[in-house]
């Protein structure tokens, strides 16, 4: 019995040494992945979100991740995993990611700064700017800038909106209640946006989305 437990203990000890050595060599703190596997995962994300994270027009608009707040990205990945945020593809994508991998991916995308894809109707930009900066007091819509910042760069759990695909913003705000906050037992920050999205008309959303689309 004693002998066999030593036999078992030895490989375990070796494994522990190997793992701790790997950890030191990578110098990534709590990382549970290699640099190569992080790079492969980044390439995987960029296949759909664009080679510079600038977003892409697939069969539906795929959002820009470049320059996004790290906390927002991590929160959203967690929301996909817990199915609080409904999306046909992102549960599958995110549930295999370890917390450390999610943090590393969020950091990578937050540091990118490509030009916006553009393409939104320019004639809507002026109206959108007014709504973004002043809100719509008659409709109980506060100024978007209050939380998302005067330059729409976001802050912590409030996402950056600058340079986002306008049709993505349009889709999200129109469908807010059916995509976000889907677990009544676990309310999240998406509840803040719910009444605002509800009170905006589709043409007001289109205007704000057009304004944000061209922001650098």
């Amino acid at each position, binding site marked *: 019995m004693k002998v066999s437990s030593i036999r078992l203990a030895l490989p375990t000890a070796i494994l522990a040494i190997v793992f701790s050595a790997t950890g030191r060599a990578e110098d990534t703190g709590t990382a549970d992945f290699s640099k190569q596997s992080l790079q492969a995962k980044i390439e995987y994300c960029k296949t*759909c979100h664009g*080679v510079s994270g600038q977003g892409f027009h*697939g069969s*539906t608009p795929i959002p820009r991740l470049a320059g996004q707040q790290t906390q927002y990205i991590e929160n959203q990945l967690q929301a996909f995993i817990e199915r609080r945020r409904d999306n046909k593809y992102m549960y599958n994508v995110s549930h295999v990611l370890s917390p450390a991998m999610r943090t590393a991916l969020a950091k990578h995308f937050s540091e990118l700064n490509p030009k916006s894809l553009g393409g939104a109707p320019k004639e809507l930009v002026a109206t959108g700017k007014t709504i973004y900066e002043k809100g719509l007091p008659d409709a109980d819509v506060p100024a978007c800038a209050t939380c998302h910042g005067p330059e729409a760069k976001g802050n912590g759990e409030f996402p950056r909106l600058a340079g986002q695909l306008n049709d993505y913003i349009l889709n999200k705000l129109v469908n807010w209640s059916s995509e976000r906050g889907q677990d009544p037992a676990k309310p999240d920050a998406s509840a803040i946006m719910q009444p605002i999205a509800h009170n905006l008309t589709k043409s007001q959303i289109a205007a704000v989305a057009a304004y944000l689309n061209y922001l650098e």
Partner: protein
Amino acid sequence: MMKFVISKTAVLALIASAVPALAGNIEPASIRNCTWCHGESAQGYAPAPRLAGQRPQYTENQLLSFRKHTRDNPFSKQYMWGAVANLSPSTARYLAFYFSKQHPKAGNDGDKELAASGKTLFEDGNPESNTVACAVCHGPNAEGIREIPRLGGLSYYYLKRKLTQWGEGYHAAAKAPMPRIASKLSSNEIEALASYLSFVK
């Protein structure tokens, strides 16, 4: 060799003689030039893919990329570079629109036993191996959108050849992301995807 030259000349003469017969309306002659190889109702034939029901922006982009020689796999070079050499951009647009209105029929020529695994890969990808879901861009029923092609019902042989050739370094139309994506697919994944898609209506 001589025989080959003569028969090729004969075909050319036949095409040339058809053009004056339709004088005043050049477009039917252009369509005929496509359907020689792509089939009478544009459902594809041998190496020539189906054009019927294809997204017009996609077809137009492909015609222009053959003309610019960006799409460069062997059959493109052998057939399409020459076929579009004198094609005007407006005729390219017209042809793409015309074929998009033809009703597509599924190729149904893949391996039925691989269709289920191909469907899973198409719809869900494989997050463990970093393979993205094809449906994200090509749509849930492989119907395509804008310049992103319809894949549903294309022939197994065509799909397999394209996916394999991109992995070998041949190019698609400018800016198309597929060569990068296809280079990561295994031959089993390509077999499964091409099989599944050949049955999609």
